[in-house]
């Protein structure tokens, strides 16, 4: 049986009905990983032994009729989530041998729900990148065409789910790192409202923007797992004091009469005609499902990119100061004094993109520039957030492309940082405002998938998933998988 062709929901049902065991399901994926991942490099660490142990325990629980809500279903974790006893590298040489003595809340929650970890997925170093080419563990390729990038920074997570080496994977999103690779790999990727998912044990890039989520093959699968990983965590001061939302309750409700906003500023931009066409078709589908289409204005949205590239590097310049070669991680050879230890450890331990962002962030915060850059960016961030607040007074969700186009070839944009940064032009605004966003497959071009993005108002993940599910119940884009 091609167990990997079953949806996550079907896998869970199969386990419950004892149609197969978790050990069988887990072994099936482990075999696929060992057979295919050479081509994609989507895993940094495969935790075979551990996975089989967890699977065995799940099977025991099923036997005793004491199963957990997501018992025995495999999952891959982005290597940004600390996992006790298994190394966590964040895609960096700096942490290439780091084994956290604690686990992230996301891992712990899903573990407590019975999920089986297959391994840790590859990613752009410290989640900085949009092509998964900055990983110390080598680039990840797109299962649709290995000459192309899978997007980033959660490129490994997207690649392994797209290649069906895992039924689902956790991911993180600071400026689009869930939604952009989901779009480029033909997956459903959701970034919830800031504060929904605990950041404890999730290695920080930019604290006020980072948020954990999932990449999945459908909105329905995503809803199941997102529910399991959400909820208040006293270890994260920015975690919302709300219980985990029920994301499956309204999933199948009709969207009849609900309103979709199209931000005119996005559609005024030049975009390839195939993108425009795919989006137009999706709009037509939504109309046919009874949704009303409304034009909205997000008049400061064009400021998002510069705002992001001030705030994210500024925060990262401080967040990454702890990697100093003193308490853990990489240390340079034979430092002659403490300054040399710092300067060379960080020169050698970080890759080019990470260093670039730390330097930019350091500059933006330095005396004399703080007001012009950082403070100005924070004020503009408020303008962008206000635009969304106004727009959501009249619409339920806001629709746009997720990315400016389909995946690009490896190496194509890696020489030009600002060209690469444009990849996130549609996704960054939701991070700035802390809003939930989802990318769902809605077309293809030249054999590569393309996604559309829906952004919802604060805490309305359920509505986003309802819109996504409604679309996926009437289209087949999400069912297309690459032929590997």
């Amino acid at each position, binding site marked *: 049986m091609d167990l990997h062709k079953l949806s996550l929901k079907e896998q869970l049902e199969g386990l419950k009905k004892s149609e197969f065991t978790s050990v069988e399901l887990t072994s099936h994926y482990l075999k696929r990983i060992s057979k295919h991942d050479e081509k994609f490099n989507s895993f940094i660490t495969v935790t075979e032994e551990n996975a089989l142990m967890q699977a065995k325990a799940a099977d025991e629980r099923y036997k005793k009729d004491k199963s957990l809500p997501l018992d025995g279903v495999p999952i891959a974790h982005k290597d940004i989530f600390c996992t006790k006893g298994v190394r966590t590298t964040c895609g960096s040489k700096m942490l290439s041998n780091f084994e956290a003595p604690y686990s992230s809340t996301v891992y712990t929650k899903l573990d407590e729900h019975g999920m089986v970890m297959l391994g840790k997925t590859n990613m752009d170093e410290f989640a900085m990148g949009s092509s998964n080419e900055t990983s110390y563990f080598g680039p990840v390729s797109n299962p649709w065409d290995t000459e192309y990038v899978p997007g980033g920074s959660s490129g490994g997570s997207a690649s392994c789910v797209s290649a069906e080496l895992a039924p689902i994977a956790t991911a993180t999103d600071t400026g689009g790192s869930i939604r952009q690779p989901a779009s480029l790999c033909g997956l459903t990727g959701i970034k919830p409202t800031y504060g929904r998912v605990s950041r404890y044990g999730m290695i920080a890039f930019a604290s006020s923007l980072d948020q954990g989520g999932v990449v999945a093959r459908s909105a329905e699968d995503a809803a199941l797992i997102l529910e399991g990983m959400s909820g208040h965590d006293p270890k994260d001061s920015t975690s919302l004091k709300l219980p985990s939302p029920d994301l499956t309750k309204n999933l199948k409700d009709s969207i009849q009469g609900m309103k979709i906003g199209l931000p005119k500023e996005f559609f005024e931009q030049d975009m390839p005609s195939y993108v425009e066409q795919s989006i137009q078709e999706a709009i037509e589908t939504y109309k046919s499902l009874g949704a009303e289409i409304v034009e909205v204005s997000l008049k400061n949205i064009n400021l998002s990119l510069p705002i992001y590239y001030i705030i994210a590097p500024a925060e990262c310049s401080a967040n990454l100061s702890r990697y100093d070669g003193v308490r853990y991680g*990489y240390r340079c050879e034979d430092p002659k004094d403490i300054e040399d230890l710092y300067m060379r450890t960080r020169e050698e331990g970080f890759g080019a993109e990470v260093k670039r962002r730390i330097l930019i962030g350091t500059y933006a915060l330095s005396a004399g520039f703080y007001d012009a850059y950082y403070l100005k960016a924070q004020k503009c961030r408020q303008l962008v957030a206000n635009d969304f607040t106004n727009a959501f007074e009249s619409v339920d969700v806001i629709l746009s492309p997720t990315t400016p186009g389909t995946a690009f070839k490896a190496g194509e944009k890696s020489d030009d940082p600002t060209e690469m940064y444009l990849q996130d032009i549609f996704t960054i605004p939701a991070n700035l405002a802390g809003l939930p966003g989802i990318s769902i497959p809605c077309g293809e071009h030249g054999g590569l998938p393309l996604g559309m993005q829906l952004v919802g108002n604060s805490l309305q993940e359920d509505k986003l998933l309802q819109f996504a599910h409604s679309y996926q119940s009437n289209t087949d884009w999400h069912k297309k998988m690459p032929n590997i």
Partner: protein
Amino acid sequence: MALSDKELKEISYLARINVKEESFSSLKKELEQILTLFEELNEADTSSVDAMSHPLDLSQPTRKDEVTEENKRDELLKNAPSVKSGLFIVPKVIDGEA
């Protein structure tokens, strides 16, 4: 937006990232490109908005003053590059230097 060698050296020192002389010019060009991007913000009228330092408009939660952590030194020092007598070892630190 031009960046001088001196500025680049200062930033690299503040960030404690050594930058080799030979990569100065290319790095400067990249950074200048990014800084040019920032100039787009100058157009925005922000005279009537407050700075938004966080997406959550909530008050900080607190915890009770209780000792909840036990000594896990061995486990926590396992990742350290150099340890002696339970201390992290680094090249000699001159007192008060910061």
